[in-house]
């Protein structure tokens, strides 16, 4: 099997602007595209991945150059772009590069937010649909399975998904560092900006006990409160509520501070010094910066959170470098397997394996039979030799016999599996 027969053609957020990507987007299930792709001449296996940041076709073709043009024209069919332009916006990876690229995608090294975990699920879904349409075969089955295990390896051996890289998630992570479990804690949302909602959503998903919403217009507060199964209060109740809650997320459009140090200071005594986490994502700011000086009060404004995110992003870039090493090792392993997927290497592998077993067993037997004469020893060796050769004869005939109806790769894969040739030690 030639590595060069494996090709990936696609567009992603790096090669094409969203204006181009949205024209390529396929909605609904992949059955249609998969069947169209399989009709391309020489296309033996294919898998189709479409997410909001990328559209990719992974395929195996007997004549990659011709198939590539057809695949590209299929991808850009709705874009109105000529093949020349299409080539500019898309990438084509072949052979080892294609394997590397797929591993990077699966491990989220090629994502817009490096390390985000969704892409692996999307890739698995794409593979599932391809399997349902029976468009994958020996090569892609193994390649995709390997890409999943590479992704898992990267996730467990590096810290690539470790720290928060979005502002709302960074806030949640901080809350957990202060409060540990969020189960018996409560959050007060003041104002109802989009980011505040997002942060609240994260907190709810992390199991926060109670959500209270305070807003200038009570209807809006009530609406938001219903969404999080919480209660709505008026803005006037801010300080009363503040004596109870653990986290405050503020995002009002107010031009002045809505909470000052002097207002919170007496509350802390009333709160018996339970810590208070204040998150100010409003611009201009809602909360007095000096609040952070109070004992057991932690105030983070939007810039503080942005800094956290930037540091975390830099960390992920560092981890990504380590992940690339893992990918490189795994790409080499796949290359080895692929090289073995030919008649001659398979026969050699079987012979080698059989000989290794024969030699080991003969040595073991002769080692315990020290009294044998030279002739008798020779007979034992001949016996072992004969058994091995006779046992291997039929499988070899089966392998070499080329029936035109057979799928040669399936046959090779079957034999290799039967003899356990690709087992990783």
């Amino acid at each position, binding site marked *: 099997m030639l590595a060069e027969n494996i090709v990936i053609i696609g567009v992603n957020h790096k090669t094409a602007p969203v204006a181009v990507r949205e024209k390529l987007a396929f909605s609904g299930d992949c059955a249609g595209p998969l069947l169209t792709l399989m009709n391309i001449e020489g296309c033996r296996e294919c898998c189709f991945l479409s997410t909001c940041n990328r559209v990719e076709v992974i395929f195996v073709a007997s004549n990659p150059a011709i198939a590539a043009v057809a695949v590209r024209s299929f991808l850009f069919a709705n874009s109105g772009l000529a093949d020349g332009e299409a080539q500019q916006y898309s990438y084509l990876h072949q052979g080892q590069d294609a394997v590397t690229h797929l591993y990077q995608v699966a491990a989220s090294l090629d994502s817009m937010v490096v390390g985000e975990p969704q892409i692996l699920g999307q890739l698995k879904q794409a593979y599932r649909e391809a399997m349902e349409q029976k468009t994958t075969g020996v090569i892609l089955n193994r390649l995709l399975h390997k890409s999943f295990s590479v992704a898992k390896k990267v996730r467990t051996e590096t810290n690539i998904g*470790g720290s928060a890289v979005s502002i709302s998630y960074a806030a949640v992570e901080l809350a*957990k560092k202060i*409060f*540990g479990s969020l189960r018996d804690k409560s959050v007060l949302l003041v104002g109802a900006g989009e980011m505040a909602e997002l942060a609240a959503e994260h907190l709810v998903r992390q199991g926060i006990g109670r959500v209270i919403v305070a807003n200038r217009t009570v209807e809006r507060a009530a609406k938001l409160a219903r969404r999080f199964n919480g209660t709505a209060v008026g803005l006037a109740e801010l300080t009363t509520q503040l004596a109870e809650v653990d986290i405050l997320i503020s995002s009002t459009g107010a031009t002045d501070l809505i909470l000052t140090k002097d207002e919170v200071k007496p509350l802390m*005594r009333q709160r018996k*010094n339970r810590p208070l986490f204040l998150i100010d994502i409003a611009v201009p700011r809602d909360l007095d910066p000096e609040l*952070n000086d109070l*004992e057991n009060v932690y105030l983070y404004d939007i810039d503080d959170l942005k800094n956290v995110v930037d*540091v975390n992003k830099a960390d992920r870039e560092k981890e990504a470098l380590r992940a690339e090493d893992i990918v490189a090792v795994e790409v080499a392993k796949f290359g080895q397997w692929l090289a073995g997927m030919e008649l001659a290497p398979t026969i050699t592998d079987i012979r080698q394996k059989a000989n290794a077993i024969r030699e080991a067993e003969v040595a073991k037997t002769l080692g315990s039979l020290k009294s044998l004469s030279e002739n008798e020893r020779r007979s034992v060796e001949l016996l072992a030799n004969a058994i091995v050769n006779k046992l291997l004869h039929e499988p070899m005939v089966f392998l070499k016999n080329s029936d035109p109806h057979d799928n040669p790769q399936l046959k090779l894969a079957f034999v290799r599996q039967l003899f356990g040739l690709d087992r990783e030690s």
Partner: protein
Amino acid sequence: MTLLFQLAMYLYLTATAVYVFHFLSQQKQVRAVARAILFTGGILHTVYFVVRYLAAGHTPITSNHEAVSFFAWAMTWAFLSFWWRYRVKNFGVFVTPLISLLMLIAAFSSQEMAPLPPALRSNWLPVHASIAIMANGFLALAFCGGVMYLLQEREIKKKKFGIFYSRLPSLEALDNLNQHCLALGFLLLTLGIITGSVWAKQAWGTYWQWDPKETWSLITWLIYAAILHQRLTVGWRRRRAAIMAIAGFAAVLFTLWGVTYLLGGVHSYVG
């Protein structure tokens, strides 16, 4: 016998080094190794006490070497038993250096076995002394928890995340750790003082004679009583509790050594 002590000490030192390595590298297997080494050290240390007890004929807790070594032993087992029930991330890297330090101090003090003065020959000796030192073990854990709390709090407050932020547990977990260790330590400290005074009544005919060690134990006890009282009433928790746990431990150390070397009295070790 000395060999047993040294083996335990070297195991503690190794465990410390491995814990530090784990702290920096954060590899799970390394932590398991560190814990196993510490556990083995703890077992050997226990054997050492048994052997020394048989050789001396009385509970080996009367010289500075013995008391400090017992202190380290108490800390080790307090930590290991604690680990059983609560998982506090990277607690070991703060506890083991202190254990090692105590062992080094014990190693450099005289290891001679002095005969027991008649006044100390009583069944109250093992009860009183071991309870008092077990109390020290838990109060030392509270001290470590306090240090961890302040380090973690500092990074969150200053918004500069260094090596501690990701490695230390949440402030809440550290505060709980503090509370549990303080409560247990305080209980044992109280029992230590009561058993001591009962014994004093038997030995000297008076419950309390304002010996410097007694006075300082009382001061230590008052400090911890204050911490717990304030915690329950006006909510001295978190940062202030952490600082107080550290201050309280300073009083513990002074009661252990300061009194012996600076002030003297009946509790001064035989050696």
